[in-house]
């Protein structure tokens, strides 16, 4: 088990969100999409220019920019 930043996850890697350390608009936006502590996520794809990244969250696909993924800490096996 290791704590890493969402930005550093590889494609097809799965992990559990531990913390979302951001408030304000970005924080709300992240949370209302289901990215809260305890949620399992899988990195699915990266855009052709490596940014943004597509994630599998609760049966849906979400996108996130790398600099936004920086706020999300993930525990990976």
């Amino acid at each position, binding site marked *: 088990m290791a704590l890493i930043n969402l930005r550093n996850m590889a494609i097809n890697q799965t992990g559990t969100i531990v913390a979302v350390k951001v408030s304000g608009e970005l924080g709300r936006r992240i949370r209302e999409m289901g990215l809260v502590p305890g949620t399992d996520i899988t990195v699915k794809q990266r855009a*052709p220019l490596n940014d943004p990244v597509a994630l599998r969250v609760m049966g849906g696909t979400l996108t996130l920019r790398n600099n936004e993924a920086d706020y999300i800490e993930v525990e990976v096996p």
Partner: protein
Amino acid sequence: MDTNITIALSGNPNAGKTTLFNHLTGARQHVGNYPGITVEQKEGCCLHRGQGLRVVDLPGTYSLTAYSVEELVARDFLVNEKPDVVVDVVDASNLERHLYLGCQFLELGVPLVIALNMIDVAENRGVTIDALTLSERLGVPVIPIVARTGRGVDQLLDAVLAVAATETRQQPAFLRYGSDVDEALSYMMPLIRECNELTALYPERWIGVKLLENDEQIVQKAAVSHPAAAVKLKERCETVTDHLQNTIGVYPEAVIADHRYGYIKSILHQGVVTRKFVADRLYASDKIDKVVTHRFLGPLIMAGVLFALYTFTFSYSKVLVEWLSSFFALINIGVDSLLPDGPLKSLISSGIIAGVGGVLGFVPIIMFMFFGIAVLEDSGYLARVAFMMDRIFHFFGLHGSSVMPFIVSGGIAGGCAVPGVMATRTLRSPKERLATLLTVPFMNCGAKLPVLTLLIGTFFSDHQARYMFLATLAAWFVALCAAKFLRMTVLRGASTPFVMELPPYRFPTLKGLAIHTWERTWQYIKKAGTVILGISILLWAMMTYPGLTHDRAAYFEQQRQQAQQAAVTASEAKELLNKTLQQIKAEEAMEGLRNSLGGRIGIACERVSQYAGIDWRTNIALLGGIAAKEVIISTLGTAYSLGDVNRNNTASLSERLAKDPGWNPVVALAVLVFIMFYAPCFITVICIAKEAGSWKWGAFSMIFNTLFAYSMAVMIYQIGALLYLR
């Protein structure tokens, strides 16, 4: 059945809300705007068991916070208009995430019915949902439906009627948000009760939650109506915030959100959702995405899709376009033979038929284009385009979601800047929004297309598709650079998050496509029918009056008589006489136009426009184009048919331009570029001013764009003249 029952449809984007709305109301819908703001309000009606239902389609949202216009609109509608029933459409295979919004409806205490949409998709994936248990636990009816086919919709409406008929008002759900927040809330209650203006509208506990979430609207309302209590409440909120920050390092809103998800999980995890077999429901979608958003293949496929859209739009609509234009030519011939020469005939044939015919002739292209866009949008591909393009858009100071306004405005040529400007509402940062607003008019809208098609068809006919494609690329390039320029100068500021959903791929329904296409085409026709007709007549008058002076009119009359006498004495063939007479007539008409108000303005502008190779006749058309781009073609048509040797109206404008010595490929290119980038049409300017909240931005876009377009056109003409015309 005495009064109508009002249902508000709400739900996450992509939950199938629009599909349900279309299924319920069919063609009986009406699109308007919420008063004061420009978020679209869709409304329709339907009949169920003899009861008339008014269905209001609320904007799709993920949450009920106050930080986007859509969410505020949805929330204010629920609070102020108090619909009899709120139907929350949720995606059955995405229940956990979609219930986040439903949970907030429960907290707000609105009469709720949950429509468990796309239950068939969930079943196919081996997911069964115990709707009854879910309903018991949530305390509201939960009805499984398939909005695409209409399965379960009757039961849904039965539930709606039952909820509407109950006397007891739905009580706000009591959620626990953890000891820190709960304690703060109970401390705040007496203070909140003092704010009776707020409690008249909202549940007490809900107000407390919103204050802790630092919700702009509620904080402001409290400060205005009950300043003393608001100060104390604010202090309390700050204390909790500080405490949470110091202990676990998060803000209250995060704690509240976590507990909402906790509540949802506790409800779902005790036997409501069972998975018969583990299957990735997005298996197919993922497979497609692996290819479609692939590093190398993705952009190639995207370019291919856009190019295919072009080919589809232009080649398949051709037959209809030709059919329509010959129809209007036929009317013109009829008018020509029925009416005597004079101002009335001139008004009808040169003003009205030429103007409106020119516009309506392009309806098929617009229909095909909107159909194509609707396919991309409904299938989910457009979101992938935003995903792939965000890196680039972000670089230019925009947002991946700016793709939509750009595409609607003509990013895939043939949109319209008016809905494009309106589509910027989904953008959350005011600065990115303004930058998008001001640059989308650079795209090739449906009204510019006919002009581009005409000029390209006339002067670059060998490579029509290629030039149209290049024109689109140029529009993108210029718009993006202009956006970057604006974001670096007048609109500096931080960027907004790109937290967005990629919906699973879906086969668009024919009904949905038809409604989309029709809506947008009808908007175009309405615009053409009202504004353009008026402007065509106005322009006809501008180009007809004051006309020739008496001296000159007499001079031409004298010339004509001389020619006739000469013909009699010389007993020459009739042909020669006709030729001379036509020549005189053309010169007369030309002088009349030169002398008209439009001509005078055009000639005055020629002093400046000559550096771009643009003559006064084109100037008049461009002037008209500020009123509406559709007018450019009809004005050129009017200008050339009034001042032309050939009275035959059926000869196309294209042939005339090709024959005109004032036109050549270099001039055409300069005019083309000028038309692509100069001042947006009046309707767009009005929309920009409205959306930006200030006329300053409307004026800015007119001046900025025209100056930019002029310098581009001058550059092209001067370089082109050096290279090719010597």
